């Protein structure tokens, strides 16, 4: 069966992904220094860079959310149990046999397998918002009184949740780097797709459903 070359990740998506990756790595490096894991930049510089990069990431997310809402690409992340077991079985058993191929047949409109959908949704609607909210509370600590938050929350509580979410982010990061960077066939396949935007997919009508950055451009009948 001949595969077709499909643009899976649009230019904006790739920009968003890699810029976000750099920012998150920077935030983890500075954040865990603030948390006392090591001493490199010193607290002042680490905290300063942590705040600056956080604002850039927030700005980036505003664009990304807007893009996902407008393009409808947010639907890619809706979790589904369908095929979940097969994917889990593949990663725990099948993957060790080079002859077994991935059970999930991705298409242009459903590019994330069920495990990815759960993982990315956790990232999008759990880890990141918790980090954002607690991080903003942290930054606006001096305004808690004006915001009516005094007495409701404590700095140590905010720090606790923020740090816990940061560890969850670190766990996601390690898992994601491995899964997305090393588990394709060949191992760099997914990474290449995230760099070039294109992936060789099995033919499917959805694949011609326009480019992801112009999803409404339906193929001619």
């Amino acid at each position, binding site marked *: 069966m001949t595969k077709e070359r499909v643009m899976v990740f649009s230019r904006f998506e790739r920009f968003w992904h890699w810029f976000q990756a750099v920012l998150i790595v920077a935030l983890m490096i500075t954040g865990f220094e*603030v948390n*006392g894991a090591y*001493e490199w930049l010193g607290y002042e510089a680490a905290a300063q860079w942590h705040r600056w990069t956080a604002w850039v990431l927030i700005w980036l997310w505003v664009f990304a959310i807007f893009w996902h809402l407008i393009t409808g690409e947010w639907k890619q992340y809706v979790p589904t149990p369908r095929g979940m077991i097969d994917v889990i079985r593949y990663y725990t058993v099948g993957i060790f046999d*080079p002859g077994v191929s991935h059970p999930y047949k991705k298409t242009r409109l459903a590019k994330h397998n069920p495990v990815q959908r759960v993982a990315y949704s956790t990232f999008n609607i759990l880890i990141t918002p918790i980090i954002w909210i607690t991080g903003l509370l942290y930054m606006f600590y001096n305004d808690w009184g004006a915001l009516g938050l005094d007495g409701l929350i*404590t*700095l140590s509580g905010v720090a606790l949740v923020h740090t*816990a979410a940061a*560890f969850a982010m670190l*766990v996601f990061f390690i898992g994601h780097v491995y899964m997305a960077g090393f588990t394709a066939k060949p191992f760099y396949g997914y990474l290449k797709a995230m760099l070039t935007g294109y992936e060789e997919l099995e033919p499917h009508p959805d694949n011609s459903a326009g480019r992801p950055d112009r999803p409404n451009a339906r193929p001619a009948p």
Partner: protein
Amino acid sequence: MNGTVRLPPGTLTSRAARALICCILAAVLVWATTAPAPAQAGSAAAQGAITGTSRIEVAPDSTADHTTFEELQGPFDSGPAVTAACLECHVNAADQLHRTTHWTWAFDNALTGQTDLGKRNVVNNFCVATATNWPRCTSCHIGYGWKDDGFDLTQDTAVDCLVCHDTTGTYKKFPTGAGHPAYEDTTWQGKPWPAVDLARVAQAVGRTSRETCGACHFYGGGGDGVKHGDLDSSMADPDFSLDVHMDRDGLDFRCSTCHTTGSHQVTGSRYTTTAVDRIGIDVPGHTDDTRATCESCHGMAAHDDHPKLNEHTDRVACTTCHVPAFARGGPKTKMWWDWSTAGQFNDAGKPYVVKGEDGYPLYVSKKGTFEWAADVTPEYRWFNGIVRYTQRGETIDPSGVVPINAIEGSAADPDARIWPFKIMRGRQPYDSGHNVLALPHLFGKDEAAFWKSFDWDKALRGGMQAETVSFSGSYGFVETEYAWPILHMVAPKEDAVGCNECHTVGGRLAGLTDFYMPGRDTFPWLTAVGWGAAGLTLLGVLGHGLARLIAAARKRRTAA
């Protein structure tokens, strides 16, 4: 010239005439150089007046020339005689002074309800108490003749005008003179101590200066820099690095620039310190009319280019960062005074002194054992301005360290800020029968005086004879600590305490554990769980990858 201080120009002395000519010449010079842009000259002069950096010759401060006054021609046989002359014109001065803590040495604290504070009442851990040691201690009283309990605080001529208003630098109270200077040539500790020329000093009176305030406040505790740590003789002539405000080549502040006075009441109190001044920058008519807080001039948000620092001013006092160390000017400050070792004699059976290499006494038979330090990092405590003293006759717990003054405040107290302190520590006598701090009679020619007889029993009996709680007959030594807020020796901003000195494990604020501080505090269990989870994830993916490699290799081998 009873009743008038105005003199016709013809009576000006030659000195005043010279001054007048100089002023006219200077004025002509200033006019000549700035005439093309008079507005600019005016603003420069105004700026100079604000910053004190102006070197423009200006008219003398005073509208009077005291050298010309008949009343001040002398000769004077005593300080009180000079005061009598001052009061001829300054008719309300004695009354004003009588109302000040500088005069009464007594203070009632409305915040704590504690009465009978002030120098005449409180116990400290230097020379312990003024009672029964009056003539020595009152060499720093702004009066004459406080020899004993019977001193009449209502006398007008007992007020010492000159000790604050001298501009000659020659007026010094004799150390054991109960507030009097030396009227005849004498000696002190083997060195000559010349008689003061009262008429000369009286004619040269002027505004207070770093030197006049410092004559007492630099030497508190009996020597240069002994007591405060942030006040010593180096502050008479400081450079920018020692104190940015008092810098002799810069702003050149005098003490009263901040410790503003009205009716001779000097603002700024150690008994009721303003721990946070939310009134901020003083605007006439809308404030407390004192500049004795940093905020009076700088407000609560002084860091224009660093908003994060402004977000600290609600919980961190200005000097916590801006006075990174005290005793920075050269003189050391006393950090430890152990009275329990006092009274030892040398082989010849005589009291003796042991000095360190730098000349500072480490042991003095009269006083015990000392420790000194320079460039001292302050200790930090929450402080809301409330200070509670352990007073005379108050029961103490001798099993622990007795606070001479308890500094109040905590992280939970919104009116408290983190303040820097010099903590003076030592061991001092206490009455072990009554469990009260003991008051030794130290100074005097009588047998009870410790510095005469070296007998604690006699000294404590004598020192406490007039107390409500008299001496029980048994005594011991108890460790005490006395917290001195650090406010002076404000360093250049480049030398201010940086973020990393507190936001770190084991930093300057390691002792303040009642709040969460980023960079210092973590949740050890979360750290363990978090890094554990990350480590297991990493192990998991590495194991997974390794297993795939092995499986692939095996497959290739079987295929081959």
